[in-house]
């Protein structure tokens, strides 16, 4: 799954640590999501979408599409 998390985080001038703290996860988790090594659970994806003010499909896209 591809995502625009790094780009959206950069727009807000947040570090990985800032975003991790806002989401209640580790910095390693943010890094793993941004590099595509880990796909977040649905609750975490919803949390990210809510924080970024965008729908989930505006942040995460399937590579198969």
């Amino acid at each position, binding site marked *: 799954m591809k995502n625009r998390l790094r780009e959206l985080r950069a727009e807000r001038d947040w570090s990985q640590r800032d975003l*991790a703290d806002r989401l*209640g996860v*580790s*910095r*390693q988790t943010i*890094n793993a999501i941004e590099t595509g090594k*880990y796909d977040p659970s649905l609750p975490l994806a919803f949390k990210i979408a809510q924080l970024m003010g965008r729908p989930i499909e505006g942040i995460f896209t399937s590579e198969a599409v």
Partner: protein
Amino acid sequence: MECAPDVGSWIAPTAWGLGAGLTAAADTALFALYHPPLPLRVAMVVVPVLLSLGYVSCVVGMFRRVDELQRRIQLESLGFAFPATAILVMTVDLLEQAKVLPAMHWAWGMLVGAMCLLWCAGYAFASRRYK
């Protein structure tokens, strides 16, 4: 919610685990030396079992507090350690039966030690995958 288990969060489970291991080892040594009365023998067996349950409770609680990636990493490391320990024990046993290795009479302490080492190795490998 804790994001990742820090060094401090390992203190309690390590203390419970060490307590269980040491009391069990002491029991083994004492049982070899003398034959205490039945109630005392039962009590001596119950103590390390209770300490082991404390260890399990601490570790499960810690897994519940960490974030989802850490839980995934722990699942992968345990998923590696469990079958790897079984394969190791089977291999050593077969090598002993084939008289390639001298009989080592694996005690529970060696088994637990191997499992812990393989869990740590599995954690190191799984953790690296997500860096």
